[in-house]
């Protein structure tokens, strides 16, 4: 049994069907990439998992428990934490306050302090800027903060929505190496990306989404080697 199991989920925005019978699994220790073009349903999938929206049919199970109809706050408490699309920092709070907000559901002060250190080790940049207002950070730093904030919840599953969006190539490199590092520390990652080549490099397994359905799945290398994917997403 996998850690996260999404089973034939159908989701709608009003009358428009966004997800058509999607099934995804994420196992412990894995990095799983969800790639596809704009509007393919990547973010909707994440929103369905995190409880920000509920599917019309299908089930989402986490750790063996059905969370299809669970609210977002409960799901965060269970250990699924996401760095949402567009980063969604608290722009007028400081870096440290943003990180503390990430630990909102936790009560163990020593644990929070340990995780704060861990985040600062992963992102030394954030440590330098700990008292700075989040809205004034550069794009790369904001992404680091969004990831750090998600890590502060001490997640059993980390979901990253487009971490490379709008970043300079050198920073994208940094961000993905950090994703690897987070995973090496034992946190499974579900990665949603438009930047398919980078995501497939990092991912153990990948799903390709197209207009709400999964059209291909396999290991990162397999998917990257497929001709269709190369034409459509890798620009080869």
């Amino acid at each position, binding site marked *: 049994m996998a850690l996260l199991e999404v089973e034939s989920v159908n989701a709608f925005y009003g009358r428009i069907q966004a997800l058509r019978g999607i099934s995804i699994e994420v196992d412990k220790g894995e990095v799983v990439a969800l790639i596809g073009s704009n509007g393919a349903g990547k973010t909707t999938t994440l929103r369905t998992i*995190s409880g*920000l929206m509920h599917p019309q049919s299908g089930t989402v199970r986490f750790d063996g428990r059905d969370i299809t109809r669970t*609210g*977002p*706050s409960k*799901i*965060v*408490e269970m250990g699924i*934490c*996401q760095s*949402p699309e567009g980063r*969604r*920092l*608290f*722009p*007028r*709070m400081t870096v440290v306050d943003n990180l*503390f*907000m*990430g630990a*909102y*559901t936790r009560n163990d002060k020593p644990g929070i302090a340990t995780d704060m250190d861990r985040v600062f080790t992963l992102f030394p940049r954030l440590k330098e800027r700990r008292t*700075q*207002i989040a*809205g*004034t*950070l*550069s*794009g*790369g730093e904001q992404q680091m903060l969004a990831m750090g*904030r998600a890590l502060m*919840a001490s997640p059993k599953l980390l979901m990253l929505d487009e971490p490379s969006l709008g970043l*300079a190539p*050198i*920073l994208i490199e940094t961000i993905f190496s950090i994703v690897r590092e987070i995973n090496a520390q034992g946190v499974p990652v579900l990665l949603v990306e438009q930047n398919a080549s980078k995501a497939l490099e990092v991912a153990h397994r990948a799903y390709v989404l197209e207009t709400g359905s999964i059209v291909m799945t396999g290991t990162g290398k397999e998917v990257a080697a497929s001709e269709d994917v190369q034409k459509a997403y890798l620009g080869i």
Partner: protein
Amino acid sequence: MARLHLRERFKDRDTAIFGVLFLGALVFPIVTMFATGSSALIAQAGHAGTFVLLAIGLNVVVGFAGLLDLGYAAFFAIGAYTYALFASAQLGSSPLHHSYHLPFWLMIFVGMFVAAAAGAILGFPTLRLRGDYLAIVTLGFGEIVPQLSYNLPQWTGGINAIGGIDQPSLPAWITGPWAGANSISIIQGAACRVIGSGTSFAPCFSFGFDPIAYYALVVIMIIAAVILVGNLYRSRLGRAWMAIREDEVAAAAMGINTVTTKLLAFAIGASFSGFAGAYYGASIGLVSPDDFLFIVSITVLVMVVLGGMGSITGVIVGALAIYFVLNTFLPALPPFVENLANNVGLGFLNTQNGDWPGLAQETQRINFLVYGLILVLMMLLRPQGIFPSRVREQELKHAAVNEDEAAVEQVHAS
């Protein structure tokens, strides 16, 4: 060590303002009694205290949680009517045919609770709405409550209002100069309703209409409210409110239950106006639907915005400033202008002539234009409010410095 600590505390702006306000509140009645020999100004200050309480409460909703509430006076009305109904002869002529005279000290908390419940009941279906939509629903609620009290005369007295509301009374041993002149006429063996409705064994004094007693009461209520709200602000709930104000989706992603958190802001904010309402009913002795119209909601909102949203000291000062402008400055303006014209040799402006009503009358007519101008000017000069919350102030400072830094860095990074 201790001294250092104390000095640091005094450096803290908010502590300093609280200290000044507290001292001012202590000195004010003594000075006015000596200077004017009458307690009229103290009565006005007691009335202003109602608005300070309202502003502190609305600040929780608007300043902390960022929910625009345009019908706050409705909760104020609910608190005032709760006290008025259960502490006057009113219910005797209602379909209940039995009048209640419950003690003020109990009803003040009942009023709080009822207003909080009303806030929760209104909030439950509507807090899923955002921004403008929520504002319009609260606006509607603010209209409904006074209309109800106009149109249910058998319960609320309608346009005739509820009069003869009981005044608070306290055991005589609490009496002192702070209890006002009425404390002299201690009623031996009379019904002293402190906790229960039965007669008491101790001699008692009634607040009567003594402004000093009410002034002392409202100051204590404000201090209690400040301590409560200050602690809430620093609590986990306070941080959740701040997160929701900044970005609701992000707050939900952090595991904050946004509906419950917003509901709590609404209910807690409303409870303070219930508190204020009970005090208002007791101190004025009359509760009429005219006291809770839309203008009251807007006035309190102006106090909060102008004082500095989210800052407790700010909204207190804002409430006092707006109250002063509305109740002292604007009424004093026409005679002042008339005198001024006489003194500088423009006395002819004061005589009525055709369409010209005379300077004083004209000033009277444009009173609210002046008020509007004052508001516009203050918002232009200090858009963040008189005393913005420390967090916000620092944010603004940081923003100015760091914006350039961040821009430079972005260039380097790409």
